[in-house]
């Protein structure tokens, strides 16, 4: 798999979450995503960026373009060194939250993505990777 372009962003303030939305939108536009697909990947990015900030205590996002045969897509990798998630199955449930949100962040982002992976270790941090194909 070829990875032509990648950029890294820091997520440490609520304004950074907005900047993430705008950067992901721009990348989706550049890749020729239609409006609905742009909106889906941007919304998924917003949910995950907020999680990184709120639960991970801040972290980073890597935005990558991915090519697989004729397919083009965007991969987003959110990483933090926060407390991690002890029960991923529970955290993925609709409506489950340890904060005061709606508990739709992870499960909703998964539904809005073509591919979704989460890797988390208590005390070490969390990495969430999503791909949306055009």
């Amino acid at each position, binding site marked *: 798999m070829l990875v032509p372009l990648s950029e890294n962003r820091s997520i440490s303030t609520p304004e950074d979450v907005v900047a993430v939305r705008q950067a992901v939108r721009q990348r989706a536009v550049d890749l020729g995503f239609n409006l*609905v697909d742009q909106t889906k990947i941007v919304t998924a990015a917003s949910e995950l960026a907020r999680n990184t900030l709120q639960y991970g205590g801040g972290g980073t996002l890597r935005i990558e373009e991915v090519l697989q045969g004729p397919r083009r897509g965007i991969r987003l990798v959110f990483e933090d060194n926060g407390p991690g998630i002890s029960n991923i199955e529970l955290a993925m449930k609709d409506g489950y939250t340890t904060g005061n949100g*709606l508990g739709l962040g992870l*499960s*909703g982002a998964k539904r809005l993505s073509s591919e979704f992976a989460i890797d988390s270790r208590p005390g070490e941090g969390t990495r969430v990777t999503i791909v949306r194909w055009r």
Partner: protein
Amino acid sequence: MERIPILKMGEYLLVTIQVDMHDRLAMSLQDDLTSKIVSAHAKGVLIDISALEMVDSFIGRMFGDIAAMSRVLDAETVVVGMRPAVAITLVELGLSLRGVRTALNIERGMDLLRGLIDSRGDGAGSAE
């Protein structure tokens, strides 16, 4: 500090969200609107989101909270102008905005608000 403007038109409040809101800005809008409903004796709130390119769970929850708070304060809220791509995404995200009244545009939203407020006026005696 950055703020979303709230316009007063008679007994209605009109909010047009034209910026990509960060969470603190969304929270301050909710607080400002709640105070303004009381200070302006507003009966209805119209929130125009036709410029919003995305509504995530945080912003969606804010609409629900504003609708619930306004109801407690004897006012109705209608959210208008949601873009089709935003609506599709919101439902797939898992948010159905239950409890939030919506209309296609400002004109229909105003009609809906008037209707809601009029019909409530008829039944007001029962609460006395």
